[in-house]
């Protein structure tokens, strides 16, 4: 049933059935149990940093809300998740290494257009600042601003009440703002 030696991560048919039904407790348990394992895979390929947490967060989110519905073999869920993590990390790594420019059609800009120069200056610094947050805070920020999830929905996935997620986001934003300002001032 499980493909992890020692049996920490167990994604069996029963768990998959509950995930398909949208059971929030099972989603939370799945997230807590699989996050570190998937992050370890991504970090192995991408190194530890915001990119690895982004790939992990997006993959687990996609798995929970889309892929789990189409799984043909629930018993092989962990292998599937592992291979998907490797594939996505490899693609991200290839993009990082080749310095491939982003394809506008593949990106969305829900925040609208920004000043190009300032954005160009701030975005790399934002990545550095994100790396200072805890993995959970980074995931929360990712789910909020990339996936557009509400605090309550995030809480159901990563664990915690909507108030807790709200506080975590406020603290994270304050920390990011302070870090960005410090870096911007330091660089003139």
């Amino acid at each position, binding site marked *: 049933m499980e493909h*992890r*030696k*020692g049996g*920490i*991560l167990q994604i069996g048919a029963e768990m998959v059935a509950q995930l398909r039904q949208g059971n929030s407790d099972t989603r939370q348990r799945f997230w807590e149990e699989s996050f570190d*394992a998937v992050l*370890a*895979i991504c970090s*192995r*390929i991408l190194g530890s940093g915001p990119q690895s947490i*982004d*790939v992990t967060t*997006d993959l687990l989110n*996609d798995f929970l809300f889309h892929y789990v519905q189409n*799984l043909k*073999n629930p018993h*092989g869920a*962990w*292998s*599937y998740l*592992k*291979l*998907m993590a*490797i*594939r*996505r990390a*490899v*693609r*991200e*790594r*290839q*993009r990082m*290494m*080749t310095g491939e420019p*982003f394809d506008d059609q*593949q*990106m969305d*800009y*829900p*925040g*609208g*257009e*920004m*000043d190009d120069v300032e*954005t160009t200056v*701030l*975005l790399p610094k*934002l*990545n550095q600042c994100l790396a200072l947050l805890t993995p959970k805070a980074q995931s929360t*920020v990712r789910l*909020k*601003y*990339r996936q557009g999830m509400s605090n309550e929905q995030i809480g159901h996935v990563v664990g915690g009440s909507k108030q807790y997620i709200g506080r975590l986001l406020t603290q994270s*934003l304050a920390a*990011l*703002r302070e870090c*960005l*300002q410090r870096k*911007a*001032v330091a660089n003139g």
Partner: protein
Amino acid sequence: MDKKTPIAKLPVSRVEDLLRQRPFYDMADDCPHTEEIANALADGTTPAELEKRFPHVQQCDICKASIHLFNQMANEIGSPEQKPAPRPAKNVISLSKRTRVSRRTVFVFSMAAVLLAGLAAGVGFVIWQSQQTQSQPDTLVPKGASYDLEIAVSRNGLGFPLREGEMVETGDRLGFFYSASEGSHMALFHVDGQRQMTVLYPVEGKRTAFVQKGERIRIRDGALVTPSTTCEWIVALFTPKETSLSRLISHLRRNVRVGENCNLKITDMDTARIKVQQIRKIE
């Protein structure tokens, strides 16, 4: 957005905008067989069998790299079974233990340590020098000495070690690492099925290069895999004394035989320790 807002007075709403604008690829998976491939891998299907079952894999670099990494990580990641850190020996002085030591004692011990370190370095240098001069005339490889060669492959931006039985692909970049229990001289050759030999290391010079003893030390010269129609091998020769490369090549030519099923046989040489790794097999 207020373009006049100085960066130093960044509002939180601006940070939120930046977070929304962080560039990231749409990660929708483009391989239609990921789940089947994952299940097959979990059942122990080999990459070669996978390529037969899923022809798409043959053309997809991401699939190939992912399958390789999946197998590589099978015994490394995802397993919580980790050996606990060894307990420190009892005679190791604990730094966390609070003990009162007078400044004078610290000074005396520091001076003694400095003197001992200097003495040890001096003795070490003298021994090293004598080894350098004495080991040169030796012609036979020391019996107890052990040597090894490992090949690292860089493919599609990913690096991984080439294990026994794994083959390279055209376009791969190869890096070489040696392990040697004794300092010795070394040369690295590429040998193909027609017994053509190319010196990979040292690229400059006509004689073997001296290599220090150590584990998994990178050789500065690498190689790029080009198309080939024959089997290929990497051959490392460790010799106790500096030898001319042309002499080694002629020696190798005399002693190398390519047998059936792409088996490279090299008759043992008293004056060199040989390590061979096959990198390409043409059926």
